[in-house]
């Protein structure tokens, strides 16, 4: 374990380690001591957490808390550079802490092996000076925002989508909060996840670095913090834009007359089901299952083997079809279903699949609403097919 030097004083080794900071007049010995005495909570050790963890550790911040309950898998390695190939299967928490302690043994890492929830958020955040938000979903974004506002802790925010990113500081005294920017989340399913939508691996590096920069500036008290300004980054155009973000006096959490004084149920607020820890994902819970609306991959395979007649539709994108496909499935990307509906017979059975079952469920809803009588969603998508029917089909 790390030896923690007495607070406020740097030892000889630390002076050498931080020499390039110490000779910067804007940091200097006073600034480096501020960093050493700082306590930063990093929520999520994934795409954004990777650069955040590495650079914040290197900078000399004394104490970093990490909240994460996920495990490193191969699809993470394209962007989560705090984890290596040897870490696949390990807890992200342990893998990230190991990388950070290797960079800087003077760091104290506090590990929280849990999802951040309405029940634990205030207790976890309370001990830290600020939060860097590296999470990946709307319920957690709103939860962290509200907790930071209630506790008066700055929330260094970053988020990414495909080739675009956003960064700002919320909940800074006098500044806006996330709800001032976005009073409500998008309806579930409108914005695809990185697993469905993809993300350029370098992108979280860029946005995470902006967050790390702002965290260090806040601690040092130098420069102009990214408060009231939302930076939009477009990797394809290599363009940064800046939008004004204002505190909304009517904001329910940080406004002049707030109506929210405690944390709420953020899954309900965002209209998404609460994740049940340890529960198998849909499609894994049964084998050979078929109902009027759903079929699992085992039952589907059996029907294909028997030579059953039905219309088998793949609603993924053409680039995904190139990676992997199920023989016999016809490609009609989800967005093309409405205009290509005439290619399908509403009176014969239709079975729809995608990558994991989300888009196909939407296609099923659309087909039923369009008068199709017998429509089934293939549970778990081609990922389940690869897991349980044909391992030679690559997963992605």
């Amino acid at each position, binding site marked *: 374990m790390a030896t923690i030097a007495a607070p406020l004083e740097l030892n000889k080794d630390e002076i050498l380690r931080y020499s390039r900071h110490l000779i910067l007049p804007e940091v200097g010995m006073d600034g480096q001591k501020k960093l050493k005495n700082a306590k930063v909570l990093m929520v*999520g050790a994934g*795409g*954004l*957490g990777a650069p955040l963890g590495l650079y914040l550790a290197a900078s000399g911040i004394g104490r970093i808390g990490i909240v994460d309950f996920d495990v490193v898998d191969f699809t*993470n390695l394209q962007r*989560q550079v705090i984890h290596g190939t040897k870490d696949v299967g390990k807890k992200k928490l342990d893998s990230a802490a190991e990388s950070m302690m290797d960079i800087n043994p003077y760091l104290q890492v506090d590990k929280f092996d849990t999802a951040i929830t309405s029940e634990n958020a205030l207790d976890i955040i309370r001990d830290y000076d600020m939060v860097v938000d*590296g*999470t*990946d*979903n*709307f*319920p957690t*974004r709103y939860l962290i925002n509200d907790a930071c506002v209630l506790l008066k802790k700055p929330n260094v925010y970053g*988020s*990414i*989508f*495909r*080739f*675009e990113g*956003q960064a700002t500081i919320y909940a800074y005294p006098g500044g806006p909060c996330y709800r001032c*920017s*976005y*009073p*409500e*989340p*998008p*309806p*579930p*399913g409108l*914005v*695809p*996840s*990185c*697993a*469905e*939508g993809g*993300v350029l691996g370098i992108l*979280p590096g860029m946005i995470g670095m902006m967050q790390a920069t702002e965290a260090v500036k806040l601690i040092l008290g130098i420069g102009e913090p990214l408060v009231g300004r*939302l930076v*939009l980054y477009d990797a394809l155009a290599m363009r940064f*834009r*800046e*939008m*004004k*973000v*204002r505190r909304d006096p009517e904001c329910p959490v940080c406004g002049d007359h707030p109506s929210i004084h405690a944390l709420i149920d953020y899954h309900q607020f965002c209209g*998404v*089901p609460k*994740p049940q820890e340890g529960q198998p*994902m*849909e499609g894994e819970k049964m084998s050979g299952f078929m109902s009027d609306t759903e079929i699992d991959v085992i039952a589907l395979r059996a029907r294909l083997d028997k030579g059953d007649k039905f219309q088998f539709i793949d609603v993924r994108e053409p680039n995904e079809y190139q990676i992997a496909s199920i023989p016999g499935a016809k490609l009609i990307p989800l*967005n093309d279903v409405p205009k290509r509906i005439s290619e399908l017979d509403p009176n014969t059975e239709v079975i729809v699949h995608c990558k*994991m*079952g*989300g*888009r196909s*469920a*939407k296609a099923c809803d659309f087909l039923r609403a369009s008068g199709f009588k017998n429509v089934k969603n293939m549970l*778990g*998508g081609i990922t389940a097919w690869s897991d349980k029917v044909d391992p030679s089909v690559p997963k992605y």
Partner: protein
Amino acid sequence: MAKILIPTPLRQFAEKNDSVELAGSTVAEVMTALTAKFPDLRKQLFNDEGKMRSFVNVYLNDEDIRYLKKDATPVAAADTLSIVPSIAGGSPSIAGGR
């Protein structure tokens, strides 16, 4: 003709365009022209009552129209309107649907 920048998540509803130039003297007029050109965008941007959804912000240059004159904000030919939705991504998201 004002320029409207369309963000990545909404390009699939706008024939993959990242920007379009449209006529209109107010934000409302430009947005109407936009959804007339790309009808699929309508239900993404507006709720059933025709109100702009609150996870989407519209900026006139760098200013949020909520702090100008909202829909009635005048738009000049040299202006850029940006549609900026909230995004949450990092890793697989429970909000994204499996």
